[in-house]
């Protein structure tokens, strides 16, 4: 039967994919045409959503963005045959934006039906797990180590070292905890992978369990992602029935099970120790390290904590060998990074490329500049705790070390573009305000400093004792950086200081007189 694809990704649904899918189904019926509408993940070309694809002999032909009003016309023009139309995009695989990427972690997203296990197997799924249960645990860990894979949550810690620590740790119970508390503004790759290819994440976690001796896996997903939670829960049920999760993982005699835990609205719970507290049902307060979670994590047991994208990279590494993954990237950043183009950007979405692509190639090349058409002024890389970089420094290569050398951080790979209407003093104030709302309260510099930071920035922009307050703000930033346990208080000064350093004029405006 002919197949038409309309994404089920929540971003696509947020601009009408459900209505378009329903209209296509009804329209096909009315015309006496027989077709199956498959709800795939998103290809990540979010400016084209809803992106409708039709399977033809030549490949999948795309149309987008399709609105409800376009459906009848599309069907009349011969959508079912992949006919020409004003919304035609040609063969989707040949769209340069997509074809020029190196889709590794996102290889299946947008292509398969996310909950069809046959699709998953046909595209290479479960080969990694099959190999993992057939070789010694040490060998699996050695492969992860050799791949050069680093934690994709933001810190970039070598995954293999963490895995080895958990494997070698003594414990009657070990856990694998997947951090899916993707709270950074400008990031959505975890969500799109969980909605578009959940089996990859589950397989990665099962491999992690087999490799480290953990029998229980937990995925901590933020409550703002209801679709991802529902998709994962269904996928887990399917994997159970199929026999690769549960008491006997694909006939290996070893047990591994996964459950989804829903967050309750707390940014700090994306920090690994706060996440563990939350998984224990407590306030999401940060724990001091040591002890590291790999030795004393969830309920005091050895716990492997990895981000969604870290674990999702694992099945490919174990199936195809570490060398292929390690061959991608630059210096100490190996493999691919899933960049997320967001904010005021003409062509936003998922760009997966080997490390080393420059920020400019991403923002100007893939992103096509601003959505508003106004000049680009600033780019925030790495979420709310990342630096604001000015538009004239976009030649920085995107890898952990190069970006750190340029005063920024890669974080989870989110890139938010701002045009020249942005007020950078307001953005600096927001960084402090966000920290004040979301601080867990454990460290005084973060809990109190953030509120004082808002007040000091308000005085600066109001022109009250400006020079002295700028000194005070700098002093406050140093205290927060040096005196906070985690990145919330420790890195909030980064966007503030970068805004001050690159856009001082925004802090020195003549205050508006309100009458």
């Amino acid at each position, binding site marked *: 039967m002919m197949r038409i694809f309309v994404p089920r990704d929540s971003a696509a649904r947020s601009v009408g994919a459900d209505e378009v899918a329903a209209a296509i189904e009804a329209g096909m019926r009315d015309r006496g045409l027989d077709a199956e509408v498959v709800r795939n993940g998103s290809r990540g070309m979010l400016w084209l959503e809803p992106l409708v694809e039709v399977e033809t002999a030549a490949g999948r032909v795309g149309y987008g963005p399709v609105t409800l009003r376009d459906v009848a016309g599309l069907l009349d023009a011969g959508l079912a045959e992949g006919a020409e139309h004003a919304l035609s995009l040609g063969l989707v695989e040949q769209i340069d934006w997509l074809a020029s990427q190196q889709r590794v972690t996102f290889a299946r997203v947008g292509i398969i039906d996310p909950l069809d296990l046959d699709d998953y197997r046909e595209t290479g799924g479960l080969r990694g797990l099959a190999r993992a249960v057939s070789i010694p645990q040490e060998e699996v860990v050695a492969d992860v180590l050799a791949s050069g894979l680093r934690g994709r949550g933001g810190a970039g810690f070598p995954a293999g070292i963490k895995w080895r620590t958990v494997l070698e740790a003594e414990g009657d119970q070990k856990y694998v905890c997947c951090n899916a508390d993707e709270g950074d*503004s*400008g990031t959505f790759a975890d969500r799109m992978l969980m909605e578009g290819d959940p089996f990859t994440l589950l397989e990665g976690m099962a491999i992690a369990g087999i490799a480290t001796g953990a029998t229980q896996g937990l995925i901590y997903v933020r409550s703002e992602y209801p679709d991802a939670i529902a998709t994962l829960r269904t996928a887990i049920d399917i994997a159970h029935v199929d026999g690769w999760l549960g008491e006997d993982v694909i006939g290996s005699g070893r047990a591994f099970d996964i459950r989804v835990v829903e967050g*309750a*609205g*707390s940014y700090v719970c994306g920090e690994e120790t706060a996440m563990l507290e939350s998984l224990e049902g407590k*306030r999401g307060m940060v724990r001091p390290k040591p002890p590291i979670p790999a030795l004393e994590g969830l309920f005091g047991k050895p716990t492997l904590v990895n981000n969604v994208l870290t674990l999702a990279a694992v099945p490919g590494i174990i199936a195809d060998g570490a060398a292929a993954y390690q061959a991608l990237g630059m210096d100490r950043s190996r493999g691919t990074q899933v960049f997320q183009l967001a904010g005021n950007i003409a062509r936003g979405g998922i760009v997966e490329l080997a490390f080393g692509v420059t920020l400019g190639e991403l923002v100007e090349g893939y992103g096509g500049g601003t959505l508003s058409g106004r000049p680009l002024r600033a780019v925030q890389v790495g979420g709310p705790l990342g630096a604001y970089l000015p538009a004239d420094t976009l030649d920085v290569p995107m890898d952990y070390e190069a970006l750190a050398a340029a005063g920024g951080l890669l974080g989870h790979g989110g890139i*938010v573009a*701002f045009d020249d209407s942005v007020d950078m003093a307001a953005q600096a104030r927001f960084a402090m305000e*966000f920290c004040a709302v979301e601080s867990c309260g454990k460290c005084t510099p973060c809990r109190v400093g953030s509120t004082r930071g808002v007040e000091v920035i308000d005085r600066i922009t109001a022109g009250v004792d400006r020079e002295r307050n700028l000194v005070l703000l700098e002093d406050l930033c140093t205290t927060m950086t040096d005196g906070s346990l985690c990145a919330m208080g420790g890195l909030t000064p980064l966007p503030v200081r970068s805004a001050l350093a690159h856009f001082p004029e925004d802090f020195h405006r003549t205050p508006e007189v309100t009458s």
Partner: protein
Amino acid sequence: MLAYAPWSDEAAQESLRTLPAAERLILPALQRIQQVFGWVPDEAVDVVAAELNVSRAEVVGVLTYYHDLRQSPPPDVHVQVCVAEACQSVGSREFVNDLEAAYGVALGERLDGVELSKVYCLGNCALGPAAMVDGHLIGRCDVERIRDAVALAQEVRT
């Protein structure tokens, strides 16, 4: 949004007894209470504390920590507007002003059963401004799109 059960200690105890063993913890217990009753009344603190054999203080500590947990009855329709950076870059500050003017309430308040509140990121950062109406994500928001979604949500309820 579904209709919620009226509060009774017995119904609350019953809802907690069906929690799987691994979820007999304070946060999942409070989430279950909210799922059943729509919010977490004061009386629930005693029930959860007794059921899990923990102190009231520990329960209140968790209850007041998480933004999602409600200590007052829920609205008919919940509109969450993203106020984080990616949406700011495409005019969410102006959008929030427009929305507040249209509904006659500020973020964090409610009128005629519709509550507006802020949220930091909905993961729809390339299609902002983003909002969520009763769990349904909406991209490229303007006041009209929110009004349509609120009307639809009200229709679903009645």
